[in-house]
């Protein structure tokens, strides 16, 4: 028996997936979820083997939800996204079902998943997320887990990012939040006109900078509106000057 969860914000969309799923007695539907929050809870509770996941959902989308899970299950996307938009994730998802889809197509996706599970070539959901993070809606906000709560940080509220071992500290006016990602990830996904890698371990929101002062020889320091000082390396200074048009 494999455990399944369906996450979709449209009830009829869930019901058709459920209907198709009924033809596969070896798959047991544990729960249907209305949105990403319910999805997260259900995934933690049931540890499913496979989830059917819609992309556009309230508050946090399918990708953002996956990002918050430490070991995400296998994913089959069910979405009305056009093919072009979904192409980027094709390489990493088990499969994606473009709505509306029929039983035959659904069975094929299930077969693909079983095959991969048997041959142990299952694609990691981590790779999927890395490619998904380049989609446009992703660089407008950062979703983090704060204890059991989920926090959505609009990027304009981010003051600066700081490397901290395997995590990145996201500093805002309310304090900092941790996200299990690399500095390179943020450097690549955040808007380069707003966020500049000022230092190996720092990315700064240029809208927060009030001035840049020299600091020791060859180095600089950016002073933010909140008074915090962010280190600026020599190459970082060059990048800052370019973006600020100095």
């Amino acid at each position, binding site marked *: 028996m494999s455990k399944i969860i369906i996450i979709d914000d*449209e*009830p*009829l969309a869930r019901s058709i997936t459920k209907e198709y799923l009924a033809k596969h007695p070896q798959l047991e539907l544990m729960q249907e979820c*209305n949105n990403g929050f319910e999805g997260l809870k259900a995934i933690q509770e049931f540890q499913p083997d496979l989830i059917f996941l819609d992309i556009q959902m309230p508050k946090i989308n399918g990708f953002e939800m996956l990002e918050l899970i430490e070991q995400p299950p296998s994913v089959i996307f069910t979405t009305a996204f056009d093919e072009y938009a979904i192409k980027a994730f094709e390489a990493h998802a088990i499969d994606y079902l473009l709505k509306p889809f029929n039983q035959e197509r659904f069975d094929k996706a299930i077969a693909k998943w079983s095959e991969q599970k048997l041959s142990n070539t299952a694609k990691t959901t981590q790779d999927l997320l890395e490619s998904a993070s380049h989609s446009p809606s992703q660089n407008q906000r950062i979703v983090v887990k704060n204890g059991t709560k989920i926090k959505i940080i609009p990027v304009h509220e981010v003051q600066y990012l700081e490397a901290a071992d395997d995590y990145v500290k996201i500093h805002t006016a309310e304090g900092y939040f941790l996200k299990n990602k690399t500095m390179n990830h943020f450097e690549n996904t955040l808007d380069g006109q707003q966020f500049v890698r000022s230092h190996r371990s720092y990315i700064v929101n240029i809208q927060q900078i009030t001035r840049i002062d020299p600091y020791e020889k060859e180095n600089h320091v950016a002073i933010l509106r909140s008074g915090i000082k962010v280190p600026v390396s020599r190459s970082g200074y060059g990048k800052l000057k370019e973006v600020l048009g100095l």
Partner: protein
Amino acid sequence: MSKSPLSIVRFRIIFILCWLVMVADHIMVLHFFGLPWQAAIIDSAISNSLLLLACILVMNTLRYYLPRGKQYINIFSICLFLTIIWLLLTKLLLKLALEHYPGYNELLQQSLSIRFSISFLLLGCVTMISILWFNQLEQIEFEERKTDAEKLAKEAELFKLRQQLQPHFLFNSLNSINALIGNRPEEARKMVQQLSDFLRGTIKKEETQWVTLQEELQYLQLYLDIEKVRFGNRLTTAINIDETSFQLKLPALLLQPIVENAIKFGLYDTTDETLIELYASRQENDLVIKVTNPFDPETSSPKQGAGFGLKSIQRRLYLLFARADLLSTDIKENIFTTIVKIPQHNI
């Protein structure tokens, strides 16, 4: 600003060669009339250098100011004026430099008319060539602008088509119908009908067409019914229309995108039930429509949430009325309100 013909190396070389020929010719002629070599060279250098300056002045002036249509008199008088100035200046300098040569003054006096006519002709030629050159450049630029504008118009049209088709909405609706077919075929049939009527409404109406609020509301109802099937009881709507405003007019296909925007904003920014309210009334000469949706002020800045949908509506209103103040938004706690005014007098 257009490029001067002298910015092209080939033309620059030709120009300088011509000038050198002029200089040499000038020296030969003066020497032939009995002036010693040295004096002839000085004379030629002074007059031709000044002439060169005059030519460059004309070219540069035309770069910024190109005469339009039948302003040939102007060009003629400018050339004439410039030649006179040139002649006076040349005469002054030549006198200062070469007065001590015996017989030079007489030669200068006699040759003034020839000097004048040759310079006038040359300056005239340079002016004509420059005008032709700059006119052609302008023509090329105009053509480029035209193709650019055409390209933009085509892109906009394609975009509009894609917007009209609303693939996301369409495919999700088809998916809902697919789900209904199995268990509730009657409802599926109804939804197919609604979706068809809605799409037909999108296609048959021109964006410049004006319709009454009542017609637009019927069209909106089709859309709302479909969305309610899709989202179940998460979506509720309340429509409050002032009796007097049913017959007021508005541009076709304007109301539905506003409501669609509010629904998307509301549904995707909260996980609770979403109530969308629509009010319409007459205020002075305007039809005023208000649409409200809930949102989460903590996580989304309404600017982003309101997003693209409103921008294109704002653009349309601007194109129709040449006013940027017809669309406004308002935030009270967790309620986002979109307000649209539609002037009634100029229909």
